[in-house]
């Protein structure tokens, strides 16, 4: 058995746009020092970790439930940032067998659920098997290499998991709150137990985890809150309460932040962020998410079934200008088919630049010397996508591509792109920091449509390389496979990538200890308010 080295992760680009240096005038007092006021425009939908499919619920449960392992942090220029490497958390130590199939977790002693029961090996086995039995969203990747008999209790504080095949994904999935959360068997059993294939109504409204916060009052449509767990095994958190206020209008969120009535706002539209630069009381955190802001092309629909047309499209688009128009240039303009925080990303196999002559000649070769007419879709009300569509429309016109803009309601939008009914659409996602997961769902031909390959892209060579990657464990080999995949996909141009998905968090300067992770986890335990 070898001790698991924390695996090579990928650099997270967290750039802090430093706020005005050394404001001399008197600092305002910290308002509500023991309460973090968080402005959001969404609301969690479900509090059952093994049933959730949305980020909002996940962000809440990151603080109420815990996992055996968790992503680690590191120091970059005096700033703590999250990494894509995992380290033990509820487990004190992990042993992995040489063949990469058997994982042995040694659990921390004395970790208690909110209800007071101790977290033991039984709870771990129960939790993994519950997730498999519910077979809802979270289980989809993990069930490829774990079965209900994989997990075995060695003793009260030791659990052994035997995978059906070696997988580099296993530990990362155990670090995800919806895949790795440890629930209290007694609580679940007291409220209806496990029904295969079905969520549990009590669990979806209540929380009994081991995390530093418990679930507080929830006023649907108005507010919800996390309340400190004074008996947390690492000591009570510094904040007494994290109060989320649902404010759908970004203008209002921004106003409240400027007035110090909110401490953090999540994902402001970039055009508003401009106003915050230079404000001495506000800090803007910018993070590259795991996703690309892109204009998808339907590779099965004419004329985008023609590779030359798709390439012409990429030559005609100016992603830098769109970045400037939409994100004030704050985003990282695309230089490859995958997001830059992912393992193995390279910007060296990117053939495109703005070149209208080349675009026109490619169009002529494809038989569209006089250009063509098409439509671009996005969901009504999404200003980032709307701005992208409007900018792209103006650019493509110059290459003779006449694009009509269509904004449609969200449900219609989703069914249209999943079923491949629309030629062009603007969409950006937020995924896990796992390169296999990203490649499989976005580019593998077995995942056409609803499964994630919305472009209906097919390249057998790419499929084969992704399949190889699933079992490749040596770093060099992985890097070369991932590089080859990018080269092939970039050349095929199944989609027009604009920039790396951008997450903006604007916060008062007095909020300290907020760490961003490429995985998208939100951990409030280290957060405090001080000047």
């Amino acid at each position: 058995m070898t001790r698991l080295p924390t695996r090579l992760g990928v650099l997270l680009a967290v750039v802090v746009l430093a706020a005005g240096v050394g404001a001399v005038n008197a600092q305002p007092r910290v308002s509500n020092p023991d309460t973090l006021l968080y402005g959001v425009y969404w609301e969690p939908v479900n509090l059952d970790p093994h049933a959730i499919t949305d980020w909002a619920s996940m962000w809440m449960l990151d603080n109420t439930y815990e996992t055996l392992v968790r992503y680690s942090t590191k120091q970059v220029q005096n700033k703590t940032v999250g990494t894509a490497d995992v380290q033990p958390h509820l487990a004190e130590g992990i042993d992995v067998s040489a063949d990469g199939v058997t994982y042995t977790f040694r659990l921390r002693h004395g970790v208690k659920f909110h209800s007071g029961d101790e977290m033991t090996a039984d709870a771990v086995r129960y939790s993994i098997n519950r997730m498999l039995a519910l077979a809802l969203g979270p289980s989809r990747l993990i069930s490829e290499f774990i079965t209900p008999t994989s997990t075995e209790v060695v003793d009260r504080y030791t659990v052994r998991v035997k995978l059906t095949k070696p997988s580099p994904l296993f530990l990362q999935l155990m670090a995800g709150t919806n895949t790795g959360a440890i629930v209290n068997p007694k609580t679940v059993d007291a409220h209806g137990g496990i029904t295969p294939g079905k969520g549990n109504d009590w669990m979806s409204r209540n929380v009994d985890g081991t995390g530093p916060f418990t679930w507080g009052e929830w006023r649907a449509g108005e507010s919800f809150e996390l309340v400190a767990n004074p008996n947390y095994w690492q000591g009570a958190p510094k904040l007494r309460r994290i109060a989320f206020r649902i404010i759908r209008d970004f203008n209002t969120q921004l106003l409240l932040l400027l007035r110090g009535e909110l401490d953090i706002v999540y994902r402001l539209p970039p055009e508003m962020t401009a106003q915050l630069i230079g404000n001495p009381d506000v800090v803007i955190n910018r993070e590259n998410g795991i996703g690309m802001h892109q204009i998808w092309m339907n590779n099965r629909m004419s004329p985008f079934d023609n590779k030359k047309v798709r390439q012409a499209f990429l030559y005609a688009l100016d992603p830098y200008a769109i970045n400037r128009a939409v994100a004030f240039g704050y985003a990282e303009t695309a230089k490859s088919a995958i997001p830059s925080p992912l393992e193995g990303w390279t910007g060296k196999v990117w053939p495109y630049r703005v070149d209208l002559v080349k675009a026109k000649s490619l169009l002529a070769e494809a038989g569209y010397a006089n250009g063509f007419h098409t439509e671009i879709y996005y969901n009504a009300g999404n200003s980032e996508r709307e701005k992208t569509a409007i900018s792209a429309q103006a650019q493509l016109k110059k290459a003779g591509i006449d694009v009509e803009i269509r904004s449609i309601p969200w449900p219609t939008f989703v069914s249209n792109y999943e079923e491949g009914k629309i030629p062009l659409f603007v969409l950006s996602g937020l995924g896990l920091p796992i390169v296999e997961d990203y490649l499989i769902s976005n580019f593998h031909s077995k995942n056409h449509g609803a499964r994630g390959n919305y472009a209906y892209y097919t390249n057998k060579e790419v499929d084969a390389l992704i399949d190889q990657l699933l079992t490749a464990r040596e770093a060099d080999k992985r890097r070369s496979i991932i590089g080859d995949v990018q080269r092939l996909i970039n050349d095929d141009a199944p989609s027009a990538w604009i920039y790396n998905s951008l997450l903006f968090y604007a916060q008062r300067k007095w909020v300290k200890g907020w760490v961003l992770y490429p995985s998208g986890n939100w951990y409030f335990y280290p957060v405090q308010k001080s000047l």
Partner: protein
Amino acid sequence: MRSSTRASAIPKAAADSASRPTGTLSLLVRRFLRNRLSLAGLMILAVWIAVALLAPVLAPHDPSDVNLEVRLLPPGPGGWLGTDYYGRDIASRIFYGARYDLLISLFAVGVALLSGAPIGVIAGYRGGRVDNLIMRVIDVIMAFPALVLAMALASVLGPGLEKAILALAIVGMAGYARLARASTLSTREEVYVEAARALGAADASVLWRHILPNIISPLVIRGTLGMGFTVLLAASLSFIGLGAQPPTPEWGAMINEGHNQLITGSWWVSTFPGLAIMSLVLGFNLLGDGIRDVIDPRLHTV
């Protein structure tokens, strides 16, 4: 929004008293011209129609010309109403926008009126079961808040200006049907109509010669006021992204495009299209009021 106006622009009392115009056309015109407010309404509309027709001449810039170098300029030398997020000239967009807002209201009200009125007349004239069935359907449609129904219809019909117009027309239809029915009912029982029927006049002839002249004026009044309301409803639809599609310079869509910049101090992007909407709707309302005052004799018994 403002579902109220749909149901009540002409309250029942006015519909009940929808009697025949009490004067010759020239008298009516003279009466109309005497009313300064209605004249003002006419002027406002005339100005907007002229602006819409002359937009290419009046507008200093192409309304969808994206130029990021001049984005969000305040009103001033860069453009008298400033520029928007994409550096487009707001004045030019408002000029071109007049075309869309006028067309939307004209077509939506036209379709609603021409389809709703015959339904109402049939219901009122036939009475009985047909009437009952039609009225229940109308009750159902009118129980929906206008914007809610328009949103649902726009979602079903899909994106695009013509679809939005159709959605607005369906929303408006029920009101015209109900009004036409009420007027038909009251006219049908007039002595001279009953006499004509007793003398064996054909239904078509009774409808054409007696009913139609009597229901036209309330419908015209309501239609004029309805245009104002339709402009507002269309703007609301565009505000939530379900109406006119970008980069169409429809005014409601322009308010939407500017509303995220309001806070960063660029107040002009949303403010001016809002004022444009207000003036156009005001024009329709003043005109509608004027027409009503002229046609409805109750106010001129002095």
